[in-house]
């Protein structure tokens, strides 16, 4: 075997490093544009954020280089220890951190303050990769998937206690990794369905079906409709039972049609929700009968599914009410239920104005009026993408999106070429986390997802987040460079 150093340089994926450097540099220019004021301070001036970010970038490069030089086996070996240490640090943070902007997530060590949550992601990914790559691991074994869930949930819960719900939500993206490693796709679908039911229940929870019965809302009705359709689909796909599916669908349609005709012709206020209940209970009874007749457990699950949907829908309101008021408004703004550009919707409205006014080619570097005049709050951190959209227009914004997509696809390709399971799982973890940040951050800036305060990787101002993402990525690059050496 040739000397390890040459081996690393040769095997290192320079494409990814290239994208990384490009994004970091673009990010710095965006921060410079966002912070830039009319007083012209030199770009290295440390009293300004662009000056500080330059220092963070320098440190990040050093960290990256160090990580590349370490023995790749180290990451596998230290995974659990790091994870345990990180959990302890997160727990500690809850108690010792001062309250900054309503959250307790910053550890202040003299002049330096760091956000442990940004580093906990890496540790969690390592631990998850290590656990899932243990010989004999099977995600379908209860003992294993419960442990897997625990690894993901523990840091999540601790971060929620730090009042950083956004950072906690990031961990939900690890479901993608589980999916890749064999988790039944149905769970992904059910997770998606859960979000849909939640949104529908909130959005239409107070829209009356008919004016005569103000208590009946479209929310529940739509959820029941979705439940019935999904049940029929499940019956066909999993039970290959087209007959039951047709009976269920036909009967439900007939029930609702009768109700509709009675209401239209006689004006009798038909309680449509009760028709829905009847249909769902009917589906349950049907499935129960089939279960006994065919002796297949699947029927029971499908039957219970309908009841569960109703249950979730009725719990959605309570869950929503238990959110913080500002979180509730953010969700309402995204769903178009509240439209107050002066208050709750101010950020998003202003960021859409900034991006929208960029046009095709943008207003040019340092020429963005909305940026320069500070119309978008948090413009150098969570809303940094505005600066790109305003100053570099559609072309610049699409370029950034395209580069991120390229990075994600590249990471998946790299992960897939790993021989070691540990490396592959870790690679998918990295890709999923970048993806989630991209999805939420840019989504909120262009008004498609609720405002959840998580940074855009490499762009948003901040040492912790830049270092966190750098560590996350470079550990994987180190693992990838050694893919030929060890077998996991």
């Amino acid at each position, binding site marked *: 075997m040739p000397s390890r150093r040459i081996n690393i340089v040769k095997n290192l994926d320079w494409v990814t490093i290239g994208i990384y450097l490009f994004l970091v540099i673009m990010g710095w220019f965006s921060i410079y544009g966002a912070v830039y004021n*009319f007083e012209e301070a030199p770009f290295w001036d440390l009293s300004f954020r662009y000056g500080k970010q330059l220092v963070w970038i320098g440190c990040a490069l050093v960290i990256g280089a160090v990580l590349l030089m370490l023995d790749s086996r180290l990451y596998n070996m230290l995974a659990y220890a790091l994870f345990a240490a990180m959990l302890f640090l997160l727990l500690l943070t809850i108690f010792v951190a001062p309250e900054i902007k309503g959250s307790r997530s910053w550890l202040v060590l003299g002049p330096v303050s760091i956000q442990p949550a940004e580093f906990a992601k890496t540790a969690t990914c390592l631990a998850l990769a290590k656990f899932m790559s243990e010989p004999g691991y099977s995600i379908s074994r209860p003992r294993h998937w419960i442990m897997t869930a625990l690894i993901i949930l523990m840091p999540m819960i601790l971060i929620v206690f730090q009042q950083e719900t956004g950072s906690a939500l990031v961990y939900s993206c690890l479901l*993608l990794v589980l*999916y*890749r*490693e*064999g988790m039944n*796709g149905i769970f992904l679908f059910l997770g998606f369905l859960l979000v849909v039911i939640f949104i529908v229940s909130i959005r239409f929870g107070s829209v009356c079906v008919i004016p005569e019965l103000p208590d009946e809302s479209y929310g529940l009705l739509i959820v029941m409709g979705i439940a019935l359709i999904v049940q029929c689909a499940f019956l066909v796909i999993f039970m290959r039972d087209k007959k039951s599916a047709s009976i269920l669908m036909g009967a439900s349609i007939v029930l609702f049609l009768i109700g509709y005709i009675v209401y239209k012709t006689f004006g009798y206020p038909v309680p449509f929700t009760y028709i829905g209940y009847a249909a769902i209970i009917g589906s349950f009874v049907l499935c129960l009968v089939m279960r006994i007749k065919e002796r297949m457990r699947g029927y029971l699950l499908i039957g219970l599914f309908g009841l569960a949907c109703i249950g979730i829908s009725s719990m959605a309101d309570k869950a929503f009410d238990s959110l913080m008021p500002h979180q509730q408004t953010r969700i309402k703004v995204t769903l178009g239920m509240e439209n107050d550009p002066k208050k709750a919707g101010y950020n998003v409205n*202003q960021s*859409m*104005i*900034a*991006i*929208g*006014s*960029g*046009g*095709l080619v943008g207003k040019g570097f340092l020429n963005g*009026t*909305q940026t*320069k*005049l*500070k*119309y978008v709050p948090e413009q150098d951190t969570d809303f940094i993408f505005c600066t790109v*959209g305003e100053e570099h*227009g*559609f072309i610049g*914004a*699409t370029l950034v*999106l*395209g580069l*991120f*997509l390229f990075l*994600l*696809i590249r990471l*998946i390709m790299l*992960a*897939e070429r790993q021989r070691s*399971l540990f490396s592959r799982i870790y690679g*998918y973890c990295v*890709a999923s986390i970048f*993806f989630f940040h*991209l*999805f939420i951050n*840019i*989504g909120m800036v*262009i*008004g*498609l997802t609720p405002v959840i305060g998580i940074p855009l990787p490499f762009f948003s101002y901040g040492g912790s987040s830049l270092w966190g993402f750098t560590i996350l990525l470079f550990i994987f690059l180190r693992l990838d460079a050694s893919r030929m050496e060890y077998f996991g």
Partner: protein
Amino acid sequence: MTNDIYANRRFVIAALMLSVVLIYIARLINLQLVDQTYQDKADSNAYLRKVQFPARGIIRDRNDKVLVFNKLSYDVMVVPREMNGFDTLEFCRSVNITKKDFIDKVREMRNRVGYSRYTPQLLIAQLDAHDYGVLQEKSFLYPGMYLQKRTLREYNYPNAALLLGSIGEVGRNTLKADTIDHFYVPGDYAGQNGVELTYEKDLRGEKGEEIFLRDAHGRIQGKLEDGLYDKESKPGKDLQLSIDIDLQAYGERLMQNKVGSIAAIDPSTGEILALVSSPTYDPSLLVGRKRSENYDILVNDPLKPLFDRPMMACYPPGSTFKTVNALVLQQEKIISQWTAFPCSEGYHVGSFKVGCHAHFSPLNLIQSIQHSCNAYYCAGFRNMMDNRKYKNISNAFEVWKNHVVSLGFGYKLGADVPNEKRGYIPNSGVYDRIYGEGRWKSLMIVSNSIGQGEILATPLQIANLAATIANRGYYIVPHLVKKIEGREIDSCYLQKKVSTIDSIYFETVVEGMDLVMKNGTGWAARIDSIEVCGKTGTAQNPHGEDHSLFMAFAPKKDPKIAICVVVENSGFGATWAAPIATLMMEKYLKGYIPKRRLYLEERMLNANLLPK
């Protein structure tokens, strides 16, 4: 690998990522390329546009005397959303208003069309320099306020209020109509009447604009591109009027304590020399913050000083109209200069009678004008209406009407003053409607021959008739404008409008009008050493005493001035209207009133003919 059966799931995950990015790109296309409103919103966020108002054009009279000029005033503008911490009490004290006034002003501001919390809005208009100084000194107490320089009108003479017009806040209709050049915004000023309105586009100039950059907290952060996009305001064009302000002022003095009008025209050019509407008012009453208060007083005055009588009042022209009939009848060969009709103190047909005063009989055309004989025109007019060559009376009347219209009656003359009225000349259809088709006879409409009956004319139209006679056959549309800086005046004010009457027939009428002054109804008002041709008139008025009318031009050869004077409810034309008219002409032609006539001037000035 142990679980490579799931290898294909990489494509599901990649597809998920790809679709999210594609959805976001689609959203960006919509935000940045399709929807253009964000650009406007960004501009209204970041740009504070301060308007620079141009100085309005100066208005001079025909002798270059300045009539209307500008003085500085300041409007208090506020950007409502930046008014946090506005020291209302101190503000009220500074500009001398009560807190209630302030609240009313704010309400008024909010209700104005086009109100926005983000752009400067007019709070209080027209502060003088002193109030400006006081406010400016403490401007730190009034966040969101700035003082906007404006110009107000100032007048050198207390005369010619209606023809000059005034400026005031633009109304909803003006704003709505302003679709082509989008010049006005609510709170702007524009000419409201008179030449200020007619020549608004010349006088107003071009607005300038300074664009400032404003940050999220409303603080000004310098100018956009260091003022690259700023626009200087361009001052309005100066205007020279054909009015002689001294003559105008003299006319207004002569008309004081009387209701009526004077219209004086230079026949050779159609330029209006004086346009008096009495009672009148000082134009400076309608300037500044007192405008609306004074406006209310004027509107409620029972003598209606805001009613532009020379342009808008329609009177029966009375005997002055006999000249028109003299022209038409000659042109139609119904009569000649030598045709004579008898008059036995009036015109009698059966029990029908039109009275006349005592004079010899029979008299010819020239004498009929000299003595203003009613019978002559009744007879002549009926001869025309009943003449076989027209087949029927309808045709005859239409021919008559067309001649009359060609002399400037029945339609707007087209003077450059808004709200001109057209007077009234009926056509045969009108009588068809009144009496039934073919069921009206010449006797029924005979009053038209002596300027009574259905016909109505404005003083300007009668003055224009005098000008047409002075020109022996044509007129130029009367107008107030003489010169506009930077452009020609409208060509319609340069073209001759030739009447349908041959020039030769005018000479007869001129001779008659000459005799009126030498030895006829206007004798008492004659001027020494100037040959004046005039015609008295007395318009019967169903509402009260007759209106006194007089039209004239002078000198007889190469006329320099044509005039019409109407004094309402004052009796015979010779008594009041004729002396006023000749005094005006003498003043204009000689520049002074000779001793012999000073008593007459005195009498006119002191007469109080207002309704009791």
